[in-house]
């Protein structure tokens, strides 16, 4: 086997060096009663070429771009990934390194993550971003737990019904064995969050609002922030499409105390939903309450600038049961990828790309409205929007799969009150021709 370098002579001489007669004898420390007696039923090893054929066969049985036109978003976005980004993240000096606990020989990862933290903080309008969490969902759960640490003794959080239902389910899972409680904030008719009931909720540690929200609607975060801060709660702003902040006001500029969300959009392939990138940022005052790794700037013995993992007294390997989180890793390579992507776009590029996403989504929205769809939610949107389909669209949605089109996400399974509502996402990967085909198909 090509990953196992030992020749029979190596094994024999090494066994001799350790004073064992056989490989089996090396396991003398495992009591006889603990030894596996059952034969295991594992397949014969595949050659590299057999493996390629097997994986090609599996991968061919998944609908994906460019053969398919998929208008799904809802937390996972199809964006072009520059070859330069894929090439750079394939550098095995980055991918085959461990956590940079030994800074002298990990400066590449460390400076790269420091730059990621900086670009993320700038994007979100915050002071400090961490080195990342698992995904948008766990980032939200951790943000709410952090809010309990900030406010102390409070036991309740309020989360908008327009926050991704997948994120809310993860929060519910994290909270299940605790005595923390989640209150759901209802929707207004325009698809944004109704915050009018906040004052009546006691003991509130945090309020979480997503923008663009699950329906693609932009929330008035500034007004939300005022209402939330009046209750004394921490304002958690969440997102699943960070590209929006190319043209949409940042959550930090609108008063958010913690900003968290999913960063997959930035150069990471969709990969059936993971690995994602939990982006997480806050204000300077709250840094020591923050979960996750942080890279900080310092100097070496000769005064040269360099980077290290820092403030680790918050973390599990030092604080154990009293840590700010149990998280040990970050999504290191995904964070590096996001930084490479942000660097590739640049300030000019991200504005133009975000604008293009917005404009293409508006084009499809307009076309579908003319084709008989209606727009039940009036709030402005970025690159996703909800439309109510005309009667009989369910059949067309099915039929379009034969044309290799997935025409939006049916919302009824997630929001029972939204019968015949579909969530459409349009990114720069769809040409006007693609959009025209879809509009024509649903019109016929």
């Amino acid at each position, binding site marked *: 086997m090509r990953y196992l370098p030992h020749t029979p002579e190596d094994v024999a001489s090494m066994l001799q060096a350790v004073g064992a007669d056989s490989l089996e004898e090396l396991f003398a420390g*495992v009591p006889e009663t603990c030894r596996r007696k059952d034969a295991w039923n594992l397949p014969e090893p595949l050659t590299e070429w057999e493996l390629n054929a097997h994986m090609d066969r599996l*991968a061919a049985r998944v609908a994906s771009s460019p053969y398919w036109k998929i208008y799904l978003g809802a937390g996972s976005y199809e964006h072009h990934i520059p070859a*330069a980004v894929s090439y*750079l993240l394939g550098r095995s*000096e980055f991918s085959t390194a461990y956590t940079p606990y030994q800074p002298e020989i990990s400066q590449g990862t460390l400076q790269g993550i420091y730059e990621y933290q900086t670009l993320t903080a700038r994007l979100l309008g915050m002071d400090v971003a961490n080195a990342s969490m698992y995904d948008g969902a766990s980032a939200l759960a951790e943000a709410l737990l952090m809010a309990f640490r900030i406010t102390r003794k409070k036991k309740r959080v309020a989360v908008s019904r327009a926050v991704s239902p997948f994120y809310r389910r993860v929060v519910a899972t994290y909270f299940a064995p605790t005595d923390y409680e989640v209150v759901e904030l209802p929707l207004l008719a325009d698809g944004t969050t109704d915050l009018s009931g906040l004052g009546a909720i006691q003991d509130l540690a945090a309020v979480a609002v997503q923008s663009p929200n699950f329906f693609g609607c932009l929330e008035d975060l500034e007004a939300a922030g005022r209402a939330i801060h009046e209750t004394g709660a921490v304002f958690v702003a969440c997102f699943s499409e960070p590209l929006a902040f190319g043209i949409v006001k940042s959550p930090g500029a609108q008063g958010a105390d913690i900003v968290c969300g999913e960063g997959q959009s930035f150069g990471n392939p969709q990969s*059936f939903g993971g690995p994602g990138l939990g982006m997480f940022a806050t204000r300077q005052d709250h840094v020591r309450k923050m979960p996750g790794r942080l890279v900080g700037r310092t100097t070496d013995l000769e005064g040269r600038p360099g980077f290290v993992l820092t403030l680790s007294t918050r973390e599990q390997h030092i604080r154990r049961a009293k840590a700010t989180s149990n998280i040990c*890793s970050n999504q290191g390579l995904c964070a590096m990828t996001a930084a490479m992507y942000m*660097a590739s776009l640049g300030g000019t590029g*991200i504005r133009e790309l975000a604008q293009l996403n917005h404009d293409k989504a508006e084009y499809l929205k307009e076309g579908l409205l003319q084709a008989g769809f209606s727009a039940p939610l009036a709030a402005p949107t970025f690159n996703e929007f909800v439309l109510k389909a005309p009667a009989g669209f369910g059949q067309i949605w099915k039929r379009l799969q034969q044309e290799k089109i997935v025409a939006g996400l049916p919302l009824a399974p997630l929001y029972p009150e939204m019968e015949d509502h579909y969530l459409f996402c349009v990114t720069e990967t769809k040409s*006007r021709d693609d959009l025209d085909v879809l509009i024509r198909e649903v019109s016929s």
Partner: protein
Amino acid sequence: MTASQGTTGLILNEPLLWERGKPGRTAFSLPRRDVERKALDPRHAGPGPDFPDLSEVEVIRHYTRLSQWNFGVDTGLYPLGSCTMKYNPKTNERQASLPGFAGAHPLLPDELCQGALELMAHLQELLAEVTGMDAVSLQPAAGAHGELTGMLIFAAHFRNKGEKRTKILIPDTAHGTNPASCALCGFRPVALKSNERGVVDPAVVQELMDEETAGIMVTNPNTLGLFEENIQEVAEIVHRNGGLVYCDGANMNAVMGIVNMKAIGVDVLHLNLHKTFSTPHGGGGPGAGPVCVTRQLEPFLPVPRVVQEGGAYRLSQDFPLSIGKVHAFHGNFGVLIKAYSYILSMGEDLKKVSQLAVLNANYIKERLKDVFHLPFDRPCMHECVFTDKKQQAHKVTTLDMAKRLMDYGFHPPTIYFPLVVHGAIMVEPTETETREDLDRFIEAMRAIAREAQEDPERVRQAPTKPKLRRLNEAEAARRPCLAG
């Protein structure tokens, strides 16, 4: 023996990203604008982020230089204990980047993602076979996330039985994530002192295991590289008192094909696919931490789960006792592909993997134990733990020797862990290292032991060959500078 591998090389300086570039440059091929511009609602419009504008060449050179400051498994021996830094096969990367996988949307209708679902179902079966457990969830995104999932399953199990249990026993050799994961689920960790053989003492478990204790979290083999030889007796005590046994499978690389985890009494086990199953560590992630359980606990696994019906796969939410979701979608699928690819490449040779991993560790232990103090002098599993006891006389510490190893061209071992060993040096070579590379590492360690006696200042001043010398970590924490 050839000369030391460590040299200074040609290492170039590289400024921060935003110290490069010029407004108006880009490294992105902007897609054609084929629709009209429509202004965003002005109430929501913002100025966009303050990012530097760089050309593609600038981006490429920036990150290429950064990469050259990093040490990875592809650079050389990386004997980091408990991290299993084995070779990351390149074919795994090829498979994960197939367009059908990399471009798959997680909310595709079941009939449009059969290949992805089949892969997950098959990987679950293979992991069950390797561990001996009955059922598997691939959703947890990392080892600590797997621990959290396991503790949530503990909590759900006792809630379902109407029992209130508040404590978990955790040996003093455990990873820090263990108590932190417990605490997150409202359990109070109770420290178990290891006995003089470095393993859990059944008598201590017997004493502490009561009706308020949910069970035990044990790492097996443990972080001293020793098999928890009393595990069956411990499991029996825990089970007799109505508790459950959690096994942190971080060190599974030592016992594949050797130990059936269910047969020794484990109820819940997490695996680190980025350790045992060869997926790259990525400078800190992404990993994957699948959770394996017995039939009894299967109803509590996270949803959605892949089920097979009449030759087709579908995702089912229909498990009323499930703890719910721990990840927005299906876990780190891109990592799962790589582990699957590895398991199919190795097949039944996975047993050979464990045998050779244990051989390599014992070889290092035997060849170094005359110069470094070995607190537990008996056959080890996949890693061995030395200390700096012999070098203390010369005022040379574990940290100094770890830093000095860099000058010799090796990544240091894990140091000062486990906490129960003072000045621990924890070496895990893994099975993918050749005997020649092990010999070079051994020679380097022996040379450092000599230097500690003859020229201790040289060791204390190390490293001198990497791009930077020792960094001021205290300063970094005192005045945090976390963004530029």
